[in-house]
């Protein structure tokens, strides 16, 4: 089968390509150039030119063709615009999830089809398989520390049918061992940590450069509404944040709520962060029938969150509500709530509110 591998230049996608090539597939490596590489534009400099170099070297060493596609415009219009818009709206976005559903498994899949490839493979730690009812289902990767199914929840049945995750059944240790066995130069390459287009991790400055007109100052207030300090914009805050509040207090204070319309950021003690329920919108029921009645699930509300047991049911307009058996800390609008049955992704959506 002809398969396109989305290659980032890291060890995971390199081994994904190697695995497919070893299985005898007709592999085509594609790397997406996502933002200005010169380092002179707003995005700042990043290691990406070296990453493209690494991807090319791996393709040449294993022996399959490799191309670079320019997705700067699409990346800006989908992932970056959403990232900036969410922060300005007082929410905390997950650009990787948008990149997966709106770029890798949409635009890139279309390009792959144009090249005669039926599937797009990535180096995600997740598994996709066809259930007995023929539905495609997404499962966690076998490495619990690396599982990335959370970032893939919004893939539709159509998208899952075109996806392949060749390293989902491997642990990171096994992936690195595989790369070493093949003498791939990326075998010891460190994992990427930050969001790729904000390599310095300074999201606030990035948002300010991208949308200077949308940034407005506001007030930091306590739970009773009493103003404690001024702040330079709601995009500088996320739920549960403790540092950088500009407020001195004996007991530690945390961001509890962000209201972008009024510009008010409400802070309070840790206990006030706890929630029992949340609602999510744009819910994608990946592998399950839409649960019109309560269904027992576990829910993960951020990457690396230990899933909480509880129950979920669908609401009108592609929304859903989740009630937790245990307190949830720092339920953050803009993050995803992903519902699992064991290691199978049932569905997920974007968190709107909590109570």
């Amino acid at each position, binding site marked *: 089968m002809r398969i396109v591998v989305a290659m980032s230049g890291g060890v995971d996608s390199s081994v994904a390509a190697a695995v497919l090539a070893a299985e005898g597939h007709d592999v*085509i490596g594609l790397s997406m*150039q996502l933002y200005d590489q010169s380092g002179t534009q707003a995005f700042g400099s990043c290691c990406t030119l070296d990453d493209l170099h690494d991807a090319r*070297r791996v393709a*040449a*060493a*294993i*022996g*399959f*063709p490799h*191309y*670079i*596609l*320019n997705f*700067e*415009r*699409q990346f800006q*219009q*989908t992932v970056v*615009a959403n990232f900036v818009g969410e922060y300005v709206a007082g929410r905390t976005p997950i650009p990787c999830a948008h990149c997966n559903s*709106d770029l890798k498994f*949409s*635009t890139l899949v*279309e*390009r792959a*089809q*144009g*090249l*005669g490839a039926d599937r797009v493979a990535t180096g995600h730690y997740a598994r996709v398989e066809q259930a007995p009812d023929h539905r495609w289902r997404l499962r966690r990767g076998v490495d619990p520390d690396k599982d990335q199914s959370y970032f893939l929840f919004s893939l539709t049945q159509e998208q899952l049918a075109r996806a392949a995750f060749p390293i989902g059944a491997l642990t990171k240790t096994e992936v690195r061992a595989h790369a070493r066995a*093949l*003498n*791939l*130069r990326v075998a010891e390459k460190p994992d990427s940590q930050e969001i790729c287009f904000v390599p310095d991790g300074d999201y606030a400055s990035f948002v300010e450069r991208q949308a200077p007109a949308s940034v407005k100052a506001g007030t930091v207030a306590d739970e009773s509404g009493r103003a404690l300090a001024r702040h330079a914009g709601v995009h500088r805050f996320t739920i549960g944040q403790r540092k950088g509040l500009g407020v001195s207090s004996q007991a530690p204070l945390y961001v509890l709520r962000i209201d972008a319309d009024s510009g008010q950021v409400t802070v309070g003690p840790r206990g006030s962060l706890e929630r029992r329920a949340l609602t999510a919108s744009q819910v994608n029921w990946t592998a399950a029938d839409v649960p019109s009645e309560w269904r027992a699930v576990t829910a993960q509300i951020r990457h690396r969150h230990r899933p909480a047991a509880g129950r979920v049911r669908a609401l009108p307009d592609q929304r859903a509500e989740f009630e937790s058996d245990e307190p949830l800390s720092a339920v953050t609008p803009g993050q995803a709530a992903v519902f699992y049955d064991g290691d199978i992704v049932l569905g997920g959506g974007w968190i709107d509110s909590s109570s």
Partner: protein
Amino acid sequence: MLSEAQPCECYDLGMTRVYMDHNATTPLAEAVADRMMTVLREEFGNPSSVHHFGQRAKAVVDEARSAVAELIGGDPSEVIFTSGGTESDNFALRGAADALEPSGRRQLISSGIEHEAVLNTLKALARRGWQTTLVPVGATGLITAEALTASLTDQTAVVSIMHANNEIGTVQPVAELTRLAKARGAVVHTDAVQTAGKIPVNVKALGVDLLSISAHKFYGPKGVGALWVRRGLRLLPFMTGGKQERGRRSGTENVAAIAGMGVAARLAMAKMAEEASRLAALRNRLEQRILQAVPGTAINGDPDTRVPNTTNISFDRVEAESLLIALDLEGVAVSTGSACSSGTLEPSHVLKAMGLPAHRTQNSIRFSLGTANTEAEVDHVAAVLPRVVDKLRSLTRTPVRG
């Protein structure tokens, strides 16, 4: 630790490949490779050395200089070897501008369809205070006498107009444009990288002061080119050092590459007329077949004055980037424009300058033919294209979400 596995050719086995990207680069001619190997092995001397070894190397360079001079109708002493077309363009523009600085003339004129080597050098000079003017081109990429006249002033220091464009192949009326520019006292440069070796290039007939060429566009090696400088023209050196090339381009000569360029120049002269008409016939056949077999296609460039090996075709509702890759997977090597700008989504600056609408500037493919191409290859490419284009067109595009 073991070193990384060497690149392998496994994906190349059994595939018929057709190379139609000769404006990007050409394969080394057999005789060129032979000569270069001989020089590399036997002529290690430094051409600047007084002794026997130096004299032998110097003789190699002298022979190449004669050949290159002959190719463009100049004298050997007017030929300066460089690292290629980009260096020649840089040297010509920067060297002439620097030399003309005391004259008080402050304007540099060029066109919007020049190679990046010229355009970006002009930008660099503009940052140093030079005033730059880009003459507009017509819909087929031609620069008219009227357009140039409208830009010329008594302040014009240098005019640089390419002989033929790399993307569309349009050949400019350089002789006529040069007369106009010289009448106003300007120094005139032409980038002849895409014409030297393909069609007759004669510095006297063109009347220019400076002319750039590059060896790897006519079956010579990469990394060597030449700048022809009219005798007596003041040009400040750009590379300073040990005063090689009569003080104009320092640095020990790349003797083997220069020797290769000389052989390539002689080969080009020997077969130019015959090869030009053969390539024109092949190119025309390719064009006709594609236009017939693929609906929604159009030719960019000037049908009457083009280099014989080049055609540039727009394919409606196809992204050039995808078509390029799809063709490569079918074994057909073409390009979207200049090799320098591949990998960018920027619409072709050449087609843009010609005033073509956005959809045509982003979906054009350049086919540039060369020595090895045959009629069978042309027919093969024309047969592959409809299928590949249909496939790309059949895919509905997901609207981009905001």
